[in-house]
């Protein structure tokens, strides 16, 4: 037998590496190499024209001590992430709960609520958003109908962030579809048993639905945070493309883009990119560590 197993494993090895070749080239040339490259550049001054000049930790020292734009963009981006992600997930869960339980025309509703997620990433929708939130746009006309005088959402630096958050929350459909799939997995007999024991709807939600959904919720949370941190198009198009008004749309990725591709300060931009990687890594690590305490993987996985 060993005789016949060897050629088989050789065939596996050869075929596997042949099939993996494109990915391996991509991994080394587009991921690992460039990652190390940007780590190196982050310790240099480099403008593409003259060779990179080693300056040690200067970029990082500058970023943390004398760069108010960096501090502003970090806090703006955190504001955006911590406003938009919980709101988006809450809406997604709420509508998913309404659509669950064998409602008629589910397919149609699911499609309608998904369409914003489909279109939301385009420049076209960002332009529409800028227009309907404008001082005399649709949103303020609607608010006027119920007697509220809305501010000029776009031109006022305090309010433009809410315009961008609302565009993100509007796209709750994709998270909703994942929640719907998760809800379908919850065995109906759990609810029947709870009903027999006299648990009301609210109690059922907190004692059955929410714990059973935590794996899906966890997944949604991690992916939404990572993606929101990298939001670019809405800030670029709804703002003026340079972070204005008054740096109120200077999201982290926009700042990085401007440093790298407007000022051609590639070293500085690389340092910003690595700081971003560390922040996202830290956030993800925190979520994974705390997940032990709140994410409930059913008996099926633990038992086996």
């Amino acid at each position, binding site marked *: 037998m060993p005789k016949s197993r060897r050629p088989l494993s050789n065939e596996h090895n050869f075929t596997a590496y042949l099939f993996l070749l494109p990915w391996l080239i991509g991994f080394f040339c587009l991921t690992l190499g*460039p990652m190390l490259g940007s780590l190196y550049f982050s310790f240099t001054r480099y403008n593409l024209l003259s060779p990179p000049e080693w300056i040690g930790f200067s970029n990082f020292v500058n970023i943390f001590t004398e760069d108010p734009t960096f501090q502003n963009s970090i806090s703006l981006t955190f504001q955006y992430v911590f406003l938009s992600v919980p709101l988006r997930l809450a809406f997604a869960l709420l509508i998913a709960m309404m659509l669950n339980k064998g409602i008629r025309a589910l397919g149609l509703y699911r499609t309608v609520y998904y369409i914003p997620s489909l279109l939301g990433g385009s*420049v076209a929708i960002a*332009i529409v958003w800028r227009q309907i939130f404008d001082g005399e746009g649709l949103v303020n006309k609607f608010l006027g109908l119920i007697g509220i005088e809305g501010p000029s959402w776009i031109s006022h630096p305090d309010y433009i962030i809410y315009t961008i958050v609302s565009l993100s929350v509007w796209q709750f459909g994709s998270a909703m*579809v994942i929640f719907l799939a998760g809800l379908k997995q919850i065995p109906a007999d759990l609810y029947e048993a709870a009903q027999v024991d006299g648990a009301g709807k609210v109690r059922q939600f907190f004692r059955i639905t929410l714990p059973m959904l935590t794996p899906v919720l966890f997944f*949604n949370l991690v992916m939404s945070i990572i993606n929101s941190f990298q939001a670019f198009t809405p800030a670029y198009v709804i*703002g003026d493309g340079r972070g204005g008004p008054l740096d109120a749309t200077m999201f982290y990725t926009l700042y*990085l883009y401007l440093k790298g591709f407007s000022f051609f300060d590639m070293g500085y931009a690389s340092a910003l*990119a690595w700081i971003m990687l560390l922040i996202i890594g830290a956030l993800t690590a925190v979520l994974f560590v705390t997940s032990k305490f709140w994410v409930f993987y059913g008996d099926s996985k633990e038992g086996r």
Partner: protein
Amino acid sequence: MRSKSVAAAVKHAVIIIAGILMLYPVLWLVSSSFKPNHMIFTDTGLWPKAFTLDNYANGWKGLQHVSFGRFFANSWLISIMSVLGNLATCSLAAFAFARLNFKLRKLWFSLMLVTIMLPYHVTLIPQYIIYDKLQWINTYYPLILPKWLAHDSFFILLMVQFIRGIPRELDESATIDGCGQRQIYGRIILPLLVPALITAAIFTFIWSWDDFFSQMIYLSDIKLFTVQLGIRSLFDPSGQSDWGALLAMSTLSLVPITLIFLIFQRYFLDGIATTGLK
């Protein structure tokens, strides 16, 4: 019984009204694109009081004598090449991970998982420098080549999970019939993988179509512009835009994505549900 059906009707009403509110911005965009320029911001109703196609004619002329037709053709080219690349290289990699035993498999697999979560920006600048040195700025290579190197690892994972669901007995009986691993990939796994391939194709198409950031960084020659870049150039944030033309072209830019979604929505929504795509 009666109160139950009333409750159901109320629930449907809430869902429908919320759904209309959700779609309102899109409907506003489509309806405004058919209104004469001076009425776009005065006539707020969804049904245009006056109907015109001028916006489409004006918008289609494009910028600096390059028509929007060119931008659309460019976007289609980039998206289709990206789709083909992702399907070919991701399915090969996924087959290797899911079915073959090879040295360092676990290491490569975990590295692949890590790259899914890696932010694009940490590799952006060296990639730009490499493409610059290769004189590939103002070509489509920076946008298409990564797809031919299975750079979107998310789709590898999607396909790995799908292949794991295909019974191994099929492979084994094919082996008995004398098929090698490469034939198993081509004759057995690939045909059964079609639903996952469609999901990956749709998402790749949409993401490439909407990938404003990369397009903006790598393309500055107006003849190479994509639809997204064309729209952004029609739009002047200080307020002097030809709004009719802008909204008309914006509407057109959403048509391909919407059509693809409506045709393939079963694969699409099930794909999201099983893999948790964006």
